[in-house]
């Protein structure tokens, strides 16, 4: 995504355990406030759960970018 610098990204395609959302939570917890992190996932459940967690934890979901092969790049900014 133009203009957004991603600090750290995890390609979680094919990750069933611990799974894409766990990877996003891990990235957010280890990031600095203001950092932008991203997780790539093709998992259907993640499309619903990941934005839901970002909202509940009060961070910012910047974008959901399509990635080849039907996957999605979830880009999130740590707000606190």
């Amino acid at each position, binding site marked *: 995504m133009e203009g957004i610098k991603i600090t*750290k990204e*995890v*390609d*979680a*395609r*094919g*990750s*069933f*355990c*611990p*799974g*894409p*959302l*766990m*990877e996003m*939570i*891990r990235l957010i*917890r*280890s990031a600095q406030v203001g950092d932008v992190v991203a997780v790539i996932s093709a998992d259907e*459940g993640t499309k619903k*759960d990941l934005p*839901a*967690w970002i909202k*509940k*934890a009060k961070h910012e979901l910047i974008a959901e970018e399509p990635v080849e092969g039907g996957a999605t790049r979830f880009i999130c900014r740590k707000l606190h």
Partner: protein
Amino acid sequence: MAKNILILGGGTGGSIVANILARSLSPQEATITVITASPQHIYQPYQLYIPFGYQDPRKIARSERSLLHRRVALVVDPVEALDIKNQTVVCRSHKSYPYDYLVIATGSTVDEQQIPGFKEGADHFYTPEAAFVLYEKLQNFNGGTIVVGIGGLPYKCPVAPIEFTFMLEEFLTKKAIRQQSEIIYTFPLNDVFNIKTAADYIKADFDKRNIKTELFFNLSEIHPEKKIAESIEGTELSYDLLVMTPPHKGAPFLRGHEIADADGWVQTDRHSLKVAQLENVWSLGDTTNLPISKAGSTAHFQAPVIAKQICAAIRKETVDPEKVKYNGHVACFIESGYGKATMLDFDYEHPPQPPPPTEFIHFQKLALNKFYWYLIPKALI
């Protein structure tokens, strides 16, 4: 001249790689050395059984020397520095060990300091010592609220908190204090487990056994004086006993290293298991930054892939990356209590389809526990 193979770490992954190489390569082709921090090899799955009195904590380890092929040299000396440019490892004794090929299998360690109040307020079973302290607390537990969950990500053995919860419910029932006890299972996601097929049966069992759940709960702080566990989502839970998996980190010498991140997780290719695009360094097991289970089973399936590549490199043979690659295979038991267990078996392409818990699968788990020493680290299966 014989090539020098160094393997850092004498756990499951390091031992299997060393033994496969020792049987595959002649002394003229390579010397093989395992450098490890402890002379003891602990079978970590046993730690789950210690808090309930099912396992003696003095009987979960064997000498690493006894598990290695006689051709493998063993050095017990914690690694302090890894110099990639000069292909040298420096240990606490200040001795240096050069290598031609390097395998990093240094595992993961608990880091209780990461969560404020964890050391004072939480119990766990991720070291033999902590598991025994928890055993004593459970022996003296006469009822109240027990909160179980995950204290940080990543952590080894993803299914262990579920197993502990099931076994806890059985333990309290047999102790005739189930009526006076409340079990609250917490999980970071919006479900009881991150694998949907397993989560369905787990949730059904939780409901049947009156195990409460608190989802989207990521531990942020513990207030031991008030006995409250707080999550980053803003939830507060009161407890009488708090059992949380501790946060984990990679080996100290890897934290912030050029080939790893700040927590010491090594940059690893998901198929070749090569480290940071280096041609002569590999990593396996808990040590890697791969988004897969940190479990002995993972290392078990990864080790042969690395050994084949090293043998090919020494013999100057070509390796077909489509034939010699790690496919993400992991296989883990889930103890369900009351003499039953199920199993998760999956890889990068195939999610797990766990069968309903059975006595037979529980028996297979017990058999693995018993025969681990003779079969797994020695790379006989």
